[in-house]
C-alpha cells in the first residue's frame, strides 16, 4: 500500500466518521420522536428537529417497528416519508445483524385494513424479505383491499391463472376467475386484460359503471379562447347555470344540449361528438347525488386545459394543452354535501394546428381515495335536472 493510498483511506474513514457521527442522544421516547417527525410541514419547518428524531429513532430495536408503522395513520405525506425511512433503516440493520423481526405482529398489521395502506404495504415488503411465503399466503385475500397495490397484486394473480386455464381449454373456470378479478381491478391495463377475454366469452360488461365514469353531461359552447385568453374569462355558466338559458357564444347563439358517451373509459369526445372547435371553451355540467356528506375524488383525464367547480366552488384548474391524456391523469379530492351536487367542467381547446394537437375530449370518474368507483346514489341523477342551479 502506498503512502498516498493509506492517506486516502485515512481521510475517507475520518470523513465518513465526521459525516455519520450521531446527534447527541436524549433518550427520548419513540412517541415523542414520532411526534417531532410528524411536525414537519411543506415549508420545511421542523426539518432539523425531524432529522435528529429520525437519526435517534432509526437506532431503535425492531420492536419499535409497529409503533412507527402505526404512526403513518395520521402523518402528513411528508412525515410519512420520514417514518418510512426510519422503518427501512431499522429493518436493514436488523436483517444485516440477523436480529429477529416481529413477524407475527407485522403480519397482523398487514391484514388489519384499518391501518394506513402505505404502512401496510411497507410492512408487507419487509416481511417478504425474510419470508417469501407471505406472498402466497396473503395476496389472494386482498382482492378488495383498500390498498390499490395489494388489489393489483391479487388481480394479477387471478388474471395469470385465468389466462392459463383459458389456454388449456377450461373457459368456464377462466371466465369465473376473470369476473372475480374484475371486482378488484381499477387500473386500466388490468381491466382491459380482463374485459377482452370476457367479452370474447359473450359476457356483457358495463365498464363505465365499473370505473364510476360520469357519462351524461349538458354541454354549451363554444366560447372564445383565441390566444388561450378564454381560460381566465368567466363566461356566463361560471356565474349561473340555467339549462334553459339562451347564451351567446363565439359562433352565435348557444344553448345547453345533452350528450352521452358509451365509451368504455367514459371519454366524451367534443371534437367528434360536437365539433372540432379550435380556440374554444366548452362548459359541461352534471349532477351527482350523495346520500350523505362524504369525501370522494374526481379523477379526470384530458389533453385540454380545464377548470372544475363543485357546488360553485372551484376545486382545481390546469392550463396545459396536448401533453397527453390518461385515465386518472388528475385526482381532485372533493367533499360532497348530502343531496344534489352540481358539477361544472370548463374544457378549453387551443389553436395549435399539428395533427397531435387536435384532441378535444375528457373523461371524469368519481371514486374513493383507493380508486374504487363511487356512484351517484340516484342512478338517473347523472342527468342534470332541468332547473336553475347555482354552481
Amino acid at each position, binding site marked *: 500500500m502506498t503512502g498516498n493510498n493509506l492517506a486516502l483511506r485515512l481521510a475517507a474513514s475520518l470523513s465518513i466518521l465526521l459525516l455519520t457521527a450521531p446527534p447527541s442522544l436524549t433518550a427520548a421516547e419513540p412517541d415523542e420522536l414520532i411526534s417531532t417527525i410528524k411536525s414537519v410541514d411543506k415549508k420545511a419547518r421542523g426539518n432539523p428537529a425531524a432529522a435528529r428524531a429520525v437519526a435517534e429513532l432509526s437506532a431503535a430495536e425492531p420492536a419499535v417497528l409497529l409503533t412507527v408503522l402505526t404512526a403513518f395513520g395520521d402523518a402528513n405525506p411528508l412525515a410519512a416519508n420520514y417514518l418510512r425511512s426510519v422503518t427501512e433503516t431499522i429493518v436493514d440493520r436488523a436483517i444485516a445483524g440477523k436480529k429477529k423481526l416481529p413477524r407475527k405482529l407485522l403480519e397482523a398489521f398487514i391484514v388489519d385494513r384499518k391501518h394506513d395502506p402505505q404502512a401496510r404495504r411497507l410492512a408487507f415488503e419487509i416481511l417478504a424479505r425474510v419470508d417469501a411465503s407471505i406472498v402466497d399466503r396473503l395476496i389472494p385475500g386482498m382482492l378488495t383491499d383498500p390498498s390499490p397495490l395489494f388489489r393489483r397484486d391479487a388481480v394479477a394473480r387471478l388474471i395469470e391463472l385465468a389466462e392459463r386455464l383459458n389456454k388449456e381449454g377450461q373457459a368456464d373456470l377462466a371466465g369465473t376467475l376473470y369476473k372475480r378479478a374484475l371486482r378488484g381491478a381499477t387500473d386500466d391495463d388490468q381491466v382491459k386484460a380482463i374485459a377482452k377475454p370476457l367479452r370474447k366469452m359473450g359476457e356483457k360488461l358495463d365498464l363505465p359503471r365499473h370505473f364510476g365514469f360520469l357519462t351524461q353531461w349538458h354541454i354549451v359552447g363554444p366560447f372564445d379562447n383565441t390566444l388561450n385568453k378564454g381560460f381566465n374569462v368567466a363566461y356566463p355558466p361560471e356565474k349561473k347555470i340555467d339549462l334553459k338559458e339562451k347564451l351567446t357564444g363565439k359562433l352565435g347563439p348557444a344553448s345547453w344540449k345533452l350528450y352521452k358517451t358509451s365509451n368504455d373509459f367514459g371519454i366524451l369526445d367534443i371534437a367528434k361528438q360536437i365539433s372540432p372547435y379550435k380556440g374554444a371553451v366548452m362548459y359541461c355540467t352534471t349532477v351527482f347525488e350523495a346520500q350523505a356528506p362524504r369525501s370522494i375524488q374526481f379523477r379526470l383525464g384530458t389533453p385540454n386545459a380545464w377548470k372544475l367547480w363543485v357546488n360553485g366552488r372551484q376545486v382545481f384548474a390546469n392550463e396545459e394543452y396536448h401533453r397527453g391524456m390518461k385515465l386518472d391523469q*388528475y385526482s381532485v379530492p372533493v367533499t360532497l354535501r348530502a343531496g344534489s351536487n352540481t358539477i361544472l367542467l370548463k374544457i378549453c381547446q387551443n389553436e395549435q394546428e399539428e395533427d397531435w394537437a387536435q384532441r378535444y375530449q375528457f373523461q371524469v370518474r368519481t371514486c374513493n381515495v383507493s380508486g374504487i368507483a363511487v356512484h351517484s346514489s340516484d342512478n338517473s341523477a347523472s342527468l342534470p335536472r332541468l332547473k336553475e342551479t347555482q354552481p
Partner: protein
Amino acid sequence: MLALVLVALLVTELTAADWRQFRGNLSSSVAAGEKPPVTWGETENIAWKIPLAGRGLSGPIVVTDRVYLTSSDGFNQDRLLVECFDVKTGVRRWRRSFQATGRTQCHSKMANATPTPASDGKRIFAFYSSNDLVCLDLDGNLLWYRGLTHDYPNASNSLGMASSPVVIGDTVIVQVESQSDSFAMGLDVRDGTTRWHRKQHRFDNWSSPIELPGKDPAKSLVLLQNMVGLTALEARTGTEAWHYDEPSSRTPSSVVADGIVFIPSNGLTALRPAADGKQAPEIAWKDNRFGSGTPSPLVYRGRVFTMSGPIVKCSDAANGKLIWQLRLKGAFTSSPVAANGHLYYFSETGLTYVVDASGPKGKIVSENPLGATILCTPAIADNSIFVRSHGHLWKISR
C-alpha cells in the same frame, strides 16, 4: 486545526474523481484525468452489471467509493427509490424508498426518476418529476424531504419533467417549468428550507440549471435556460445578475467552458459574461448550424461538439468555425461525455459510439453494444463508465 486542514485537503483529493451531478461536477460532461475503456461488449470490460429495482432516465452519480442512482417504480411511478452501490464491487449498500407527493404522470418513454441526483460530497439530493426533493446522507439516512408540489400544485407536465438539480455552494437549486406553472427555487442544503424562489415563465422546459463559477465562490451564479432566454442569478440569494433574452432550447442544457457560456440558442451562441458578473454578457459568436436535439452541447479541449439527430458537429470553441461533422446511427437521448481524448455517444438502442475528439476529421474509434435501451447520461469515475437502463446498472471498466 492542523488535523482538520489535513482531512480537508485529503478529502478534496479523494473526491477529485467524483461525478456529482448531471454531466459531472461542473456540468461539463468532461472527466479530466480519467481513462475509461474505449471498447466493451457483453463479456469484455464489464466490471459488473447489477439489476435495478425500478425505471429511470436519471444518470448515476459517483461520490467517493459509491455510486448513487434514483429510480421510480409501481404502476403509477409513485414509488421513489434511491440506491447506493459500491464502486468496486457493485454490491448494493442500501436502498431507500419514498412515496411521491406530487403528480407522477409521464410519457411512456419517461419515468418519474428522470432528473439526475446531485451531491455536495456529503449529501445526496434526489429529485423527481413529481417535484419530490429528498436529501439523504451518504449512508442513506434521511436528512430532509420537500414536496414542492404542495407549494406549486400546477407545476407539472403530463409528459414528465426532466430538469436535474444543481448544488452551488450550500444551496441546491431546482428549476421546474411547465405550461401551467413554473418556478425556480434555492434551498439550504442543510435543512431544505427555502432560501429563495421565483416565478418563471409558463412554458414547458426540460433543461437543467448550471453553475457559472465566480471568482468569489460565494458569488457563483446559477444559469436558468428556457424558451425566453437565459437568466443568471446569484445562487445563494436568487438575485438576478443578468439576462440573455434570445429564445433558447428547452431540452439540451447550456455548458460553461473557460468562462464562456455556450447556449443552445439560435443554433449555438457563445456568451462572454462581463468581468463584474452583473452586466449583460456580450456575444462572442453564434452559428445557427450548430443546433442541438436532446443531447446537450459539450466543450472539450478547445472544441465544441453539438448533436442534432444522429449528426455530430465539431467546431472551434473560440470562433465557431466548423472543423468536421460525422453521422452516427440511431436516436440519442443521452448527452455525450468525454474523457482521455474520446467522446462517448450512447444511442437509445445501447450502441455506444466512441469518437476521436481531437483529430482533423470525425472518426469513430469503436462501436460497443450493451443490448439495452439507454436514455441516461452516464458518469465517468474510477477510470470507468457507469450507465443505466431501466433494468440494470453497468460499470464499464478495464
